[in-house]
């Protein structure tokens, strides 16, 4: 997995609540058997019209946000399906950090498996960052995962919480499966004791 340490970039404002995974990556793009190449279809039905032409009003089509690396969004971001195609598409587009008042559980977990940092902050704080993001491409935010801070384009530092284990994995770019396999003796002994206590499983 790609490491996430610090990131300085343009933040795109998307003040919409309940951005769901069907919006992030519509179902017709789930038929791939690869993880890559989904960025061109990120937010497809919001970004492109029926003929495939860009919808100019959509935030990521605006010149100042075309290379955004941070997304600031409304409450309950990523609700809906478990499709990991959603974070794959976000990352493939070039976004490495999403900031919102809250995230749907599965999406939130999926981000961490893909080197994306989702940051949940109180609505008032997201409002400050949303305003900062609305300033466009000259206003770049900095995210420092080690220090757990977001620095706005005006130099205001905002701290955020992150699960220590998930932080460690992101900072080091660790592979979960490898880490778990180091505990295979624990799994072995769980399996043998479960075979006694719940043999029907």
């Amino acid at each position: 997995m790609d490491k996430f340490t610090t990131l300085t970039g343009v933040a795109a404002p998307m003040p919409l609540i309940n951005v769901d995974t069907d919006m992030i990556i519509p179902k017709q793009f789930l038929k791939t058997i690869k993880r890559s190449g989904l960025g061109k279809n990120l937010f497809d039905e919001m970004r492109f019209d029926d003929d495939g032409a860009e919808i100019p009003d959509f935030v990521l089509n605006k010149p100042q946000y075309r290379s955004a690396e941070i997304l600031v969004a409304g409450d309950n971001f990523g609700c809906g399906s478990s499709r990991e195609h959603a974070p794959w598409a976000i990352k493939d587009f070039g976004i490495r950090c999403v900031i919102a008042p809250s995230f749907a559980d599965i999406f939130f977990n999926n981000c961490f498996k893909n080197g994306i940092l989702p940051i949940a902050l109180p609505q008032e704080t997201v409002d400050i960052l949303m305003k900062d993001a609305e300033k466009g491409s000259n206003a770049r935010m900095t995210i420092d995962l080690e220090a757990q801070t977001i620095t706005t384009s005006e130099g205001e530092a905002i701290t955020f919480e992150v699960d220590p284990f998930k932080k460690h994995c992101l900072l080091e770019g660790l592979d979960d499966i490898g880490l778990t396999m180091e505990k295979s003796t624990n799994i072995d002994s769980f399996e043998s004791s479960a075979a006694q206590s719940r043999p029907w499983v």
Partner: protein
Amino acid sequence: MSPKTLYDKIWDAHVAHEADDGTCLLYIDRHLVHEVTSPQAFEGLRMAGRSVRAPDKTIAVPDHNVPTTAGREDPANMTGDSAIQVAALDKNARDFGIHYYPVTDVRQGIVHIVGPEQGWTLPGMTVVCGDSHTATHGAFGSLAHGIGTSEVEHVLATQTLIQKKSKNMKVEITGTLRPGVTAKDITLSVIGKTGTAGGTGYVIEYCGEAIRDLSMEGRMTVCNMAIEGGARAGLIAPDEKTYEYCKGRPHAPKGAQWEAAMDWWKTLYSDDDAHWDMVVMIKGEDIAPVVTWGTSPEDVLPITANVPAPEDFSGGKADAAKRSLDYMGLAPGTPLEDVAIDTVFIGSCTNGRIEDLRAAAEILRGKKIKDGMRAMVVPGSGLVRAQAEEEGLADIFRDAGFEWRLAGCSMCLAMNPDQLEPGERCAATSNRNFEGRQGRGGRTHLMSPAMAAAAAVTGRLTDVRELM
């Protein structure tokens, strides 16, 4: 011993390792797999030279992509990409030696219907699948939730998940339901009350007399949509109905093992003084037949209500409501019962079980769908389909003018050819009314099977009680 919730008990019985910070390795008893969210996971195993740790606990079935029309076993009848995904699942199931129900098998169907039907899902188990509606299996008192593809790979390789414990929420539905009110109305009404983010960070236990009174099919409908309320999982304590449903299923324990299992299952309930982080109570008598009007499952109203206005909401929801109404083509103040529909879809892991088909057929018996209406029934599994044919339900649907399809996810998420056209309005028994969910520009109203059947007859959103 300190009092525990049902969730606490199942969790504690599955922790294979706990780190100092509370991060746990949770052992997984059943891993269900379908064709859309698994190919990258199997590919990951191959690249790393890893095998499936517990192939006997891993069950695969193609459901999302498969056409629901005759001749679908011929890949030429699938779109190219769909055929590739189904072929990949065929190959992965064979290569890794996992249980598999191909499209040619009568037991094939939606993974969340096949699991319980075959007795894979049992009380007290941990069940995961790369699909958010895995919550369905919670109806058996199992801890069941959706995971992403990276986690699918993790479970395939290690039979565990890295997890932190969620909080406990109790949702109690007291009393009895009024006529015409179903499990779907319960689950939608709960989401209408708590919101789609209300359950974030929680596992919900549904309880109360109205839940006890539900059949296993109804309980699956309720738990299925726990995810739409934002919860990691929804569950219901097992009881005699649960045991009765499980008994004799192909993969349920038999003989002495059944007795041993029952001994444990009977301990699976929340202790009287267990701690709840949040409690929601709804009176069963207060629940009406409901429909959704917007593009979030929380946009729920009784069928007798009018379309709301953005000004009825505050904060971000006002903007979202405006966007929803634009998308749905609805004017504030319009009675919901005046909204004309073009299409009816009965099926999905929410409402594709035999009881759902019975409820819809009951409304349709001796009636015809409105002229020009497109209506389809997609049974949740080949076995549901066979049973419905045996009971004469298929004839009722066909006589009424419904298409009688083969099993699959179908128009719930429109990954197969069953899709809405832009602007087409659908009465659907599925679980999501998101923009574009059933096809780009398609407009979805969620409701119970009986309500969908009533809408098919009248051609508009309809209070099913008028036809009862």
